[in-house]
């Protein structure tokens, strides 16, 4: 419990072999929620521990070891998003609409003419091909929007948990979800319904 926090972190620092058991699940869940890719999440957890090991001398006890690892992992995830160019499908459906969010004019009217999607929603929802396009579109979202949308819709976290995971206000989350949906709609319109 809380009796000897110092002693406890001493032990942890001294025994890195215990790290995967003690912190692995928390770090993995965090990475999964953001990346949605199991192999990649596992890799980043491993890299986090190795980076922690290399830099253990710089660990200061005012934070817990888990918090410290989380900081390392966060940076690795940010790097990952920045450098994302691996999936060929992602390039195939590159979208241009993300620049500037110019969906509405100054008076708040639609800039684009939204055409109807003439499909059976039931078919589309089940379609593997549609899902792959949607996933590629999600990968195209700016990272902050992608993280919010994935956590909320794909991982099924409630709004409160998403806000605390991303350290944002509920209003901010609402804006991000709104923008994510605008971009996803446009991406699908261009790449699936075109």
């Amino acid at each position, binding site marked *: 419990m809380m009796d000897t926090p110092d002693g406890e972190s001493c032990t942890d620092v001294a025994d890195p072999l215990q790290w995967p058991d003690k912190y692995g699940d928390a770090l993995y869940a965090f990475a999964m929620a953001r990346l949605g890719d199991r192999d990649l999440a596992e890799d980043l957890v491993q890299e986090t521990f190795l980076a922690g090991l290399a830099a253990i001398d710089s660990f200061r006890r005012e934070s817990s070891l888990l918090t410290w690892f989380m900081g390392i992992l966060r940076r690795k995830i940010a790097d990952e998003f920045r450098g994302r160019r691996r999936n060929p499908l992602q390039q195939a459906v590159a979208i241009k609409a993300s620049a500037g969010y110019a969906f509405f004019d100054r008076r708040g009217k639609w800039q684009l003419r939204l055409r109807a999607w003439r499909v059976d929603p039931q078919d589309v929802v089940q379609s593997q091909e549609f899902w792959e396009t949607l996933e590629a579109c999600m990968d195209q979202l700016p990272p902050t929007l992608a993280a919010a949308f994935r956590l909320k819709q794909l991982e*099924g976290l409630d709004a409160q948990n998403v806000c605390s995971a991303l350290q944002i206000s509920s209003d901010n989350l609402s804006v991000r979800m709104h923008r994510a949906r605008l971009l996803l709609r446009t991406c*699908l319109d261009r790449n699936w319904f075109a």
Partner: protein
Amino acid sequence: MILTLSCDRAARLLSDAEDRRLTFVERLALRGHLFVCVWCRRYRAQIRLIDDCVRHHSTSRTGVTAKILSDAARLRIRTKIADELGGPHG
């Protein structure tokens, strides 16, 4: 507010409606706008389709493996750390 709801605010409310229950006033304003705006009606149908699709795949993929580190990964990582430490197998 009811009479002056613009498309951008309507779209924001449509998004919010996917995530929370709108207030009475918001619902009223939105209904009035949707009645006269075909673009926003289309937008609603489209983002609902997107959300339904994501939810559909979310439930089918959040199996047992999703939330915790697999034993294989755990072992692999521990081995890596041991290697890095100079290992007991030295």
